[in-house]
């Protein structure tokens, strides 16, 4: 095993993703060969419907691959059971939480479930981890609030805190800034960046905030109709990958500004 291979925490091998029903197979993307190194902030880009969420769902074992395989820490994903996976990989999803009376603290504390005993007792050790997660995400003042009282931006940070409390090497977030204004979007991005730097965790997010991601993410996985690009922002710019992201009528990628700009006629 070479040195760089040792640091690969997630790898896909000829992966095809999509949906399987009794009658037919709907392939959304195929031939996906990507690898993610430990301690990187990875942005998954692609236009609506290209399969970002499906890819994230597949590498987090929410749904099965149609073909090929996913390896996490050199072990096939299909060989993990729920319990094992829960200490390696945590999720922040886009789905709405069912309406309950959970407080922010209780919600974050649920992140400790993979480690608590059968009756879910929180030992001082667990409390320390929970409070650390709350402190990192700066939600201490919200601790006793119910989660439905929060703004979208606050809730997103609470969900990130929950994933942090789960104490996993990899955190996967599906469009964490979907409903946020530019200030809160930036806040979430810089929080994730900070966490990668301070904790050495690997964070993979899917996002539409291309301009912001180019400034903050270490690595990119870019899904386009033609092919799948991976690499740093500079590598992708050199390959003209960003031009593939969207149809070219309205916006274009400006290489010197390193962002998308509106086309002027």
């Amino acid at each position, binding site marked *: 095993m070479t040195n760089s291979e040792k640091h690969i925490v997630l790898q896909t091998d000829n992966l095809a993703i999509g949906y399987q029903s009794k009658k037919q197979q709907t392939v959304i993307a195929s031939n996906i060969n990507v690898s993610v190194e430990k301690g990187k902030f990875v942005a998954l880009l692609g236009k609506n419907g290209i399969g970002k969420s499906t890819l994230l769902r597949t590498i987090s074992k929410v749904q099965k691959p149609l073909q090929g395989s996913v390896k996490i820490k050199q072990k096939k994903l299909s060989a993990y059971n729920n*319990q094992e996976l829960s200490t390696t990989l945590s999720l922040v999803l886009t789905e709405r939480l069912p309406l309950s009376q959970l407080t922010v603290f209780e919600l974050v504390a649920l992140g400790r479930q993979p480690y608590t005993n059968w009756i879910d007792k929180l030992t001082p050790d667990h409390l320390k981890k929970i409070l650390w997660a709350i402190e990192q995400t700066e939600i201490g003042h919200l601790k006793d609030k119910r989660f439905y009282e929060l703004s979208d931006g606050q809730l997103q940070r609470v969900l990130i805190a929950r994933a942090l409390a789960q104490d996993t090497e990899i955190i996967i977030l599906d469009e964490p800034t979907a409903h946020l204004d530019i200030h809160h979007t930036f806040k979430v991005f810089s929080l994730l960046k900070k966490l990668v730097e301070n904790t050495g965790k690997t964070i993979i997010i899917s996002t539409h905030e291309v301009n912001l991601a180019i400034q903050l993410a270490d690595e990119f996985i870019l899904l386009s109709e033609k092919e799948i690009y991976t690499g740093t922002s500079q590598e992708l710019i050199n390959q003209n990958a960003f031009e593939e992201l969207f149809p070219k009528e309205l916006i274009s990628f400006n290489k010197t500004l390193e962002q998308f700009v509106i086309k002027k006629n």
Partner: protein
Amino acid sequence: MNLSKTYTIQFLLLSVLLIVFFIANISLGSVTIPLEEIFNILSGGISIKDSWETIILNYRLPKAITAILVGSGLSISGLLMQTLFRNPLAGPFVLGISSGASLGVALLILGSGIFGGAFLILIFSNWGLAIAASTGSFLVLSAVIIAANRVRNTMSILIIGLMFGSLTSSVISVLAYFSDAEQIQQYLFWSFGSLGNLTWTELTVFGTIYLIGILGTFFVIKPLNSFLLGENYAKSLGINIKRSRNIILLITSILTGVITAFSGPIAFIGLAVPHLAKMLFSTSNHKVLLPAVALIGAIILLICDSIAQLPTSEFTLPINAITSLFGAPIVIWLLVRKKKIYV
């Protein structure tokens, strides 16, 4: 810092209420027995009148204990269903589980007339009714779950539950059509619901099965709490969804089945009590909610039963009528009230 809220005051208050209504329930009835005599008899002393001793020990005490078992068991079943389906309107009755238990009992009582012999032995054994009712409730619940896995829409699940309910009642009607008056009457009386008429032997059988169900709930506290975040999060927290769901279903069908077998189909308690508990304790943590619904359910059924026996009268109203009279307004109030209804 207030990390984990304690609910000592609420629990203390409910425990006192439980004892008060337990005593009140025993002291009320067609025969008036002085309170000191009741305490005397309950603590194992010898009463001035033999008949009082018989009334208390063989009639009122088993009935009050039955009320506690039925009230707490149904409320726990309701809470489990509401969390599992993440639907505030779920409950053993709405989802057709009680109807399933009724079908089991109907097959036993009414079917014995049609199919004869073999069933007769079962009717008179204490376990027969319990097994029939539990099987019936488990079958309906499994069917609801299979349907629920396919539709995933909570409103559809409730409608499917109601459909199963009406399916089972039509099967019961068909059975009744072919049965003789005596058996129909026997079934009809059972379906009114009754907390009395249980011998100590029957109560022992009831209590044993009830305890098995209650013990089971301890093992699902963790999955129940994680279900509050939805199935995908629960899975990512390491919960074995299928196994947890099956255990929850098993507990619910055991509890609902045995309760329905011994006391008839009792409506609304399972639906209404969890909401009362969620309001009183304003928490979603099942470590708090489970004992809370058990206490509140027991208290409310003791009250309902005290009302049903129409104090100082010889008549006893069907318990099912009282719980519905009490439960229906609560459900309506819940829906009319614009506040949030929690899973």
